[in-house]
């Protein structure tokens, strides 16, 4: 594996992003109120998410942590419009997403949400550039795909197929795809889960930079407690409930975090 060597080059190629912060103050950009999700398995009711409420401000880098089965993914699904809550309300940028029908939800995913998957979920048949374009094709106000790919450090690998890219590179394509849609919310489901340490860090760095530079609201779901210090807001979920929420006035750069 020559990932290390290649990584060095990638890190070098990441442009410096200036820090822009706190412009949007305390307004509640995303607000969850008493969100409950109950799965019925025959006779048994499983409360995957139980009465969760929290708010996120615009431009925040939010990390949701919790052990496996705590309900993180369900929260993410509801946030991403991939699932509907059994009860409660989700308001994003003043819109009540919980009231949306299926089509509106699709529109919501299309326009407002950027999704970064644990396993990248690139279309294997499309090149990096085309995978980004795939998302752009459907939204109203997209960014330029090449620019975004350059921004995530893949300017030279535009025409490579996913199978020709390393895991980190694939994840960068995935992020570029999400970003290029110019979404309101960037949702990342264990973005480093399938990556090695260094690559994982580089990806998190990229996400943090995106947040800082573009004022993108980024929500990262992870079970890795170690990255908590880099978050503006840290939400702990346990047994379907928010066990703890803290805001970090001085988040550290990922470079300073080791685990």
């Amino acid at each position, binding site marked *: 594996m020559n990932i290390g060597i290649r990584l060095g080059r990638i890190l070098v190629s990441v442009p410096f992003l200036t820090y822009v912060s706190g412009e949007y103050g305390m307004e509640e950009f995303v607000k969850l109120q008493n969100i409950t999700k109950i799965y019925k398995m025959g006779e048994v009711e499983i409360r995957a998410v139980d009465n969760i409420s929290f708010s996120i401000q615009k431009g925040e880098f939010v990390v949701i942590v919790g052990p496996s089965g705590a309900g993180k993914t369900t929260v993410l*699904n509801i946030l991403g419009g991939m699932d509907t809550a059994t009860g409660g309300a989700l308001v994003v940028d003043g819109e009540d997403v919980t009231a949306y029908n299926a089509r509106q939800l699709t529109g919501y*995913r299309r326009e407002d949400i950027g999704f970064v*998957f644990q*396993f990248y979920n690139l279309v294997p*048949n*499309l090149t990096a550039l085309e995978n980004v374009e795939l*998302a752009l094709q459907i939204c109203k106000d997209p960014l330029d795909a090449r620019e975004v790919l350059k921004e995530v450090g893949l300017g030279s690998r535009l025409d490579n197929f996913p*199978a020709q890219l390393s895991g980190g590179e694939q994840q960068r394509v995935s992020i570029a795809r999400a970003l290029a849609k110019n979404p309101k919310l960037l949702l990342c489901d264990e973005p480093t889960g399938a990556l090695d340490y260094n690559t994982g860090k580089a990806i998190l760095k990229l996400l943090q930079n995106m947040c800082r530079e573009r004022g993108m609201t980024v929500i990262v779901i992870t079970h890795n407690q170690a990255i908590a210090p880099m978050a503006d807001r840290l939400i702990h979920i346990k047994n379907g409930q928010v066990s703890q929420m803290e805001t970090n006035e001085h988040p550290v750069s990922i470079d300073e975090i080791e685990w």
Partner: protein
Amino acid sequence: MKKRALRKDFYMEIRRSLGRFLSIFFIVAIGCAFFSGIRASEPDMRYSGDEYFDNKNMMDIQVISTMGLTDDDVSAVEDVDGIEYAEGGYSTDVLCADGANQIVVHVMSMLPTMNRAQLEDGRLPEKEDECALDVDYLAESDLEIGDTVIFSSGTDDDITDTLVTDTFTITGTVSSPNYISFQRGSTMIGNGSVNAFVYVPEESFALDVYTEIYAQVEGAADLTAFTDKYDDRVSEVLASVEAIKGERQDARYEEVTAEAEAAVSDARQQIADAETELEEGKAEAETELAEARQQLENAQAELDSGKSELETSKAQIETNRKQLTDSQAEVEQGTADLNANIDSLNARIDQLNAAKEQYNALAASGQADDVTMAALQALYEQIQSGEAAVAQAQAQINAAKARLSSAQEQINSGWQQLEAGQQQIADAEAEITSGEQELAKGWEEYYAGEAEAQAEIADGEQKIADAERELADAQEEIKNLERPEWYVYDRNNLPDYTSYGENADRMRAIGEVFPVIFFLVAALISLTTMTRMVEEQRTLIGTFKALGYEKHSIAGKYMGYALLATVTGSVAGILFGEKVFPYIIINAYGIMYQHMNELSIPYNVQYGFGAAAAALASTLIATFLACFRELKEQAAELMRPPTPKQGQRVLLERVPFIWKRLNFSWKASIRNLVRYKKRLFMTVFGIGGCMALMLVGFGLKDSIFAIVDIQYGEIQLYDGNVILNGDASEEEKSEVLAAVEADKDVEGAAEGLLTQITVGNGEEWHDIYLSVPKDAESFPEYTVLQDRVTNEEYFLDDEGAVLTEKMAKELDVEPGDTITVRDEDRGDISVKIGTVCENYMGHYLYMTPAFYEEAYGEKPEYNSIVYKTADRNTEEAERVGEAALKLPGALSVSYTTDLEEQVDNMLGALDLVIVVLIISAGMLAFVVLYNLNNIAITERKRELATLKVLGFYNNEVTMYVYRENIVLTMLGSVFGVLMGWVLHRFIIVTVEIESVMFGRNIDFSSFVFAFLLTVAFSCIVNGAMYFKLKKIDMVESLKSVE
């Protein structure tokens, strides 16, 4: 129990993925059903045919001899090793009037046990003047049971030489195992082809030898007809029969020769007798004539002497007459003298008397004086002397008187005699006249007699000469007497018999192609499904492996799964298919062989076994390979997602001109198509197969319809064909032509020669029609000779004959080649083929009269008239035909529409096949598309879920998938057009029956229909897919790669 968990997992797997299990089950079932069913149709056709022939106790071997067959021959055949028993029978071809038409009927005697006729209606004939008629013919004619038919021989011979009577009553209708379909064979009389057959009792035949012998081969009934085993057995025995042929021919030859020679010597004796008789007769006649002449001559002489006598008599009479006249004159003179004497006497008497008075007066006066006295005296004396003188004179007169009267008397008697003599003469003259007349008559008679005798003699001599010549001829003939020829045939000589076997062969040919494609698709699909299943369960396999299960236990689950689905599917499919498909197909063929009512559909285990084994093998090997591939890897490796498939650039990308213009949904689709090559191949194959099957179905219809349209619309432009009576005079024949031409509805008519001939290339021989138009110039108005492909029109010329395409292919001849025409009188004739022309119904050899003359060495005898009507409809054609038939010169008429009916019959049989094809095609399309789409969707669930997460609307996701399907459907259709075109060509050539060439065309509309149906099937399947796509859960996208 060991590995109970694994077993439980196995059953749970089936229950959980029942859809997949059932889909394999059904695909295998359909594939096996189709494969084994269509394949089994071939042997089932043979079994059914065999059962029919067995039931009818059909002969295996038929012996026909040119000189008849005797009872000795029958027992000789029976004694041949391998012959179970033999029966002699009679048959002959006769003409029969049906309405105005003269039809040719094949009359057969009912055999004691063999070739049993199937009674369809009425009863079988019992008396010698009863017959049972061909049921097919009765149906289309006006005849009914109870009608009488009158047969004539159609040759110079008398019908009663062959049959005891010429009038038969129809007692019933029958079908015969000798004639299983429409054909009735050919004949030497009438227009050359037999129209119907009748069965009569044996006693109806007046022949003293059999015309044929039928024999059953030992053990042949147990073998299946139309199989090599049967054929081998029969040809083995046939060879044995052939072996006694020479001996029997010789025996018959001896017999016939002996008979003939006896007849010849009889005849010779007769001639000799006749000659002697003639000689005798001649002598006798001569004597008689001579006598007659002598008599006549004698009579003449007599007559002549009579005549001269008569002349003498006549002269005498004349003399006598003269004498008499003289005498008369003398007498008259005498009388006159006498009278004068009397007068003088009288005067003297008067004087005397006066003297007396004077005297008396003087005496009375008394004067007696002397003077007085003297005076008295003187007076007295005077008186006295006077008186004496008077008395004397008186006496003299009296004497004279007496003399005169006697003379007169004599004269009178002389006259009388004379008259009598004259009378005699007159009589004699009359006699002579009548004698002369008689004599003349006698001569006349004599001459007539003489002439007669001479004529008779000449005649007798002529007859003898004739008889002698005939005798000489007969002797010559005996010398040259052809040896009797035995023809030993098997059942293949029966019309349509081989065609049934050929149809079975055709079925096999179809069975070898169609179901194989079908089966291949089914196998491919079950194979893909199983492979996919194994791949899907990669992690599970890894888990089992990690848990320490052996490879075979893990593989066992999947193998078992495949085995169970395939075996049950095969069994169900075979049980169903081997009953249903043969049933449909044999019933469809039943339209052609409508009296073969036996249906024997046993299970043909070998085909079923083959199909099941193939299905099992393909699925199990695929499963095994898939399992092997997975199991080969380490457990840990299995737990990890497989390395994603390489995306790859497609060729099209190298054409930036096009590629740049595609939006990348299309780019993605195109790349996907290339990426999933197996799926691409199978979908294209499946859709192509569906399209091809339907194209074949529609195409078959087009091609068969083409026969009617092209044959009677473009090639044969006449509506009716009058066959002339061969026995009619030239005037009668030209009368028919004149009558047809004069008809107001007839647009044109032309004379020609149309006759059935046998042609061959030295190896195989076929019956075809020879057509020689009298006027080659006007020929294209009635028959267009053209090239099928280029439509180039050909014209008859004296350089070569024109042969129709199908026969050219059968005989493998090309323009410039030579074929042989087998002619019974002239032996083999070589005919050069100038061109080959398009033709669909029947086979024809066309030539100009000049070319005919060159080939045959004589001018053609025109025997038919083709005509076309103004409006070209059936009514007109039939009316003209019926009018023509009333003339003695016309024998029969055939109409174009009758031939069209035949085509309709064939079409009926194929209609069902076409429906089966289209339904099968539809099923194939469904199964393939559904399965492949299903696999495509499950395989790409993640990708699709991701698209959904990315915010693609349902229809956009659907289109993402459908775009590929549309391309695949198009590709498949294109492929299907090619495949269908090839397959159609193959099928057409295969299903063609010998006498017909089907069109090679598929109409454009059929392409459109097949395409639309394919698209429709595709749409339905894709429609069902929509819901499946809609149900894809976005959460799938979050799962790890399996």
